[in-house]
């Protein structure tokens, strides 16, 4: 393999940090938070695929495939909840969802 594993991990760490930054910075918008979480999970898949190639085993690729299934389930749940709350409050702005102190 021509790309060393270290480079893959550095790229994935950067992606993960950017995703986390997105989630934290756009705390007021649920959709942007979901996008940030997607980016974080994509970084995870990148490490799995890269490490799989480095060690010559398919386990990591399997894990990456199942993370895809997991994220699709997660996003469908989150969007269902966003639609439901949107119907109640007519917004996706999380600042409105503050009926509980905390």
């Amino acid at each position: 393999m021509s790309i060393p594993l270290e480079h893959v991990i550095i790229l994935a760490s950067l992606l993960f940090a950017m995703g986390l930054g997105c989630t934290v910075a756009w705390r007021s918008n649920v959709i942007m938070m979901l996008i940030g979480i997607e980016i974080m999970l994509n970084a995870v898949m990148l490490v799995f695929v890269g490490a799989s190639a480095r060690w010559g085993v398919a386990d990591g690729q399997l894990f990456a495939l199942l993370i895809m299934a997991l994220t699709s389930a997660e996003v469908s749940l989150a969007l269902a909840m966003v639609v439901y709350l949107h119907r109640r409050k007519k917004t996706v702005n999380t600042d409105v969802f503050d009926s509980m102190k905390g």
Partner: protein
Amino acid sequence: MSVADVLSVMPLILTGVGALLVLLLGPFLQRGLVYCLAVAAGTAAGVWGALYPASYTPAIPGISFSPLARYLVPIFCIAGVLTLLYSHGYNDRHRIEGEEYPATVLFGLFAMCVLPCATNLLTLFLALESIAFAFYILVAIDLNRAESGEAGLKYLLFGAVAAAFTAFGISLIFAGSGSLELSAALDFRNRAIMSAGWGMILIGIAFKLSLVPGHLWTPDVYQGAPAPVAGFLSTGSKVAAAAFLLLLLGVAAPARELHVPLFALSLLSMVLGNLAALRQNNIKRMLAYSSIAHMGYLTLALLTGTRDGYAAVLLYGAIYTAMNLAAFGAIAALSGDEERARMEEYSGVGYSAPFRAGVLALAMIALAGIPPTAGFMGKFFIFYSAVKGGEIALAIIGIISAAISAYFYLRVVVHLYMRPAETTPPQPASPAESAALFLSAAAIVVIGVFPNALLHYLGTVLR
């Protein structure tokens, strides 16, 4: 896959098939029957798990019915079944309809049963996330209260970030060791990558266990969720997250890099959890901060890394399940159309509903750690193992914060028995609720007086 393999994973089959059956037959059966079916599936899985001999040979790739599973599966099943029993009457009064509620409880229970059986990181991670998925739905299931949906969304967003951290940690461990076996997590040849992976996993698990500073979601989610769901969430999912850490650690002591983060998490959770609980006037928020503190005690026992410490963690998991299910069950059984949220609403209830209030008072006394309840035994073994394991400073801080915590637990008891009634007395409890309350109260007393049977079995689990 032989017959013996099928028999050894029978708890998983029973809960999984039970959940599907409930979902499929739900529209054709009466509501009571659907709950009966779900309770029967959970009970059967628990009894099977308690009676079937454990072995380390994998039944299917990634799953083996280990001694740890044999200990934890019955506990999870008891928690699930008690939750279903509490929910039936509660959901009637709160107009939570449909078969998806018992089905989702069973799906969550299925994932909990898978978790201690896992033999590789993939199964372990998927089980942990499936538990969380079931709870995202259950927390948001009450359509009549705005807080329920909000709590669900909050839990989902925090949970998804935590899942990303845990997955990133596992991917780094895979990159460092080249294997997804559980033992790979202890293979420290690539020290830098492995430490980074463990750090990420700890951040993810701190969210799941609601350890300070990953605790922010806990009070809101407990307040927003229906009371039986909050009870299941605070017991099943917390014990599962602790089991996740135990399985990753093997029976070995945590690596030296993990000592400082675990120490900080335990210290902050014990101190801040108990101090914040002092200021709460909403009983569910108070229980949320109390659960943060209790997870701090659990982390203290994990930190020691000794066999005694791990046995204390597992024993405390069982005891905490009994205590919190009794507390949240009593809150659910005492609720009318609305839950009694503020402490004042419990004034005088001790005389208008003596049995339910008695169980609530017993749960509070147990959570405060007063003998002869199980709560005392659990705390005793945790602090004993901590002192024996060399964490004397942290054990002293823990004991002092536990002493402070008695104030807010006993405040509930004072309201129940020593204040004049302010609200209308509660309606009579259903037989299912009374039976479930009796079972959890009996567990608190029996484990408190005879902890030896459980401890003896734990000795064989951690051989």
